[in-house]
């Protein structure tokens, strides 16, 4: 009796399942086709090509000439500007990312409060992130910090400030994260007599840690690629004494001013490896401090 009833049921679901999703699998690829073409021709292909070019001498106009590890060896052992660029970028990432995130978290907690003005404040703090990447703002920086950009440490500091100034973007994400923490946790903490610092350490930080991690990864990757400010402040030279010679700026100079495109490709790949390594490290370290509620993922 049961077998008779059982049999048709899966048959119906299977049939409707085929109709629901599988009409023609090619339809999915039709929707995906622009992306697939882009991924192949503008991402994967160029990645492979730039790996090849990094082992050549190439000036865009004559055929690339194979030179083995030459570009890498020259960058790592001979070219002093390369290490200056690494140093400037390293300092910039190490200082600007933590300071920016701390400012973002602080302001997010500050304005996370029941008030009709919250939306306006949030927008006002966010505005610099929309403007900050522009040449216009870099020009403003150049004029306002005119006295600073002549000395190496201060020139870099001016660029760090330009980046920190744009803390509104991670702030907005922190704020949305804070608003998702169930208020019962805070009520319970208050009942237990926990002070503000204790509440922050035991509730806010762990509950927010996935969002902190997201912002940390995203900001770090972006910080490695900052270009416009350094170009504008230093006229594209990275001066004074290479203090603002960001890696991307030096890569641009090698590739598109000196047309040493093999060398620039090698630099591009080293950047890719460095960013991937730092990201992997951040993921690795995240196991120790990032807390996923319910541990779903």
């Amino acid at each position: 009796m049961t077998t008779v009833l059982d049999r048709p049921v899966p048959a119906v679901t299977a049939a409707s399942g085929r109709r629901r999703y599988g009409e023609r699998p090619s339809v999915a690829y039709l929707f995906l086709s622009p992306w697939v073409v882009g991924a192949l021709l503008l991402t994967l292909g160029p990645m492979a090509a730039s790996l090849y070019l990094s082992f050549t001498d190439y000036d865009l106009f004559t055929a690339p000439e194979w030179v083995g590890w030459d570009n890498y060896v020259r960058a790592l052992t001979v070219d002093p500007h390369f290490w200056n660029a690494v140093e400037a970028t390293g300092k910039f990432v190490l200082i600007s990312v933590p300071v920016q995130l701390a400012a973002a978290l602080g302001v997010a907690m500050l304005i996370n409060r029941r008030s009709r003005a919250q939306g306006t404040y949030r927008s006002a703090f966010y505005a610099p992130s929309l403007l900050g990447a522009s040449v216009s703002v870099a020009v403003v920086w150049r004029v306002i910090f005119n006295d600073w950009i002549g000395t190496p440490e201060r020139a870099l500091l001016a660029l760090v400030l330009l980046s920190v100034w744009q803390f509104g973007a991670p702030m907005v994400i922190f704020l949305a994260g804070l608003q998702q923490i169930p208020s019962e946790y805070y009520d319970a903490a208050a009942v237990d007599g926990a002070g503000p610092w204790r509440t922050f350490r035991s509730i806010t930080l762990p509950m927010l840690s996935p969002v902190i991690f997201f912002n940390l990864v995203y900001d770090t990757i972006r910080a490695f690629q900052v270009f416009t400010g350094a170009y504008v402040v230093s006229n594209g030279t990275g001066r004074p004494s290479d203090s603002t010679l960001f890696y991307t700026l030096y890569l641009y100079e090698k590739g598109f001013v000196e047309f040493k495109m093999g060398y620039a490709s090698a630099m591009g790949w080293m950047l890719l490896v460095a960013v991937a390594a730092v990201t992997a490290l951040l993921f690795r370290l995240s196991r120790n401090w990032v807390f996923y509620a319910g541990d779903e993922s």
Partner: protein
Amino acid sequence: MNAARLRTAGWHLFVLLLLTPLLYPIVWLAAASFKPGSEVLEQSLSLLPSHFVFDNYRELGGELAGVPVWRFFANSILVAGGSALANVLSCSLAAYAFARLRFRLRGPLFAFMLATIMLPAHAVLIPQYTIFQRLGMVDTFWPLILPKLLATDAFFIFLMVQFMRNIPRELDEAARLDGCGSIRIFGAVILPLVRPALVTTAIFTFIWTWNDFLSQLIYLSDPEKYTLPLALRLFIDTTDQASYGPMLALSALALVPILLFFAAFQRLLVEGFATSGLKG
């Protein structure tokens, strides 16, 4: 009651105190663009000009490097507008496939798509340039727009996938029962429902392209084709004090479209950006 009100007032005061230096550079730019050129560097931090002059703006009515200044605006609008349209079109197509359709490589392709968000543009810059050079597209707007038509801005695919996942599947299924195919469902059901995501994508793309400097610097060399960031760069190279005035005036004008978009769509932009980070 009174103490609570005092605390609220203190909170407002503190927030405004923080906002003042934060917004100062923008206000400064607006004010300084009315300063006489010679005054700009001498009193670089002061807000008010000794007397307001409109000369800086008047000069922008003329030419820069032999090109009328309005042309730079037109070029920037063309590039940023074209990029915005291209991103909306290509990213929504890809996002629909990832969010709703079943196909064998969905998992790995989705992971790959996410990984490309993290890919530094510099790693592929030179081969991309070579490709566009071979295609004879250097010094045209194509290298700036074509990549967006091919959905290389994966961030926006991701943003739209997040929006589409929130649409109840029952709506698709009802349309399927009515005999709609995926293409109809995409156009008639999904797209209208993700309109906020489309607008967010369009405006963000417009603003980011409007601000973008590196790729425009690389691909455009004829001043006739210069966009605003490149026109501003012409000023940067000069050390002439007198050119500081027009430089600031053009800088200020270049920010106006961004501020207008932001004023009109701030809620959508801020919330669109916030959700991108949360469900990752």
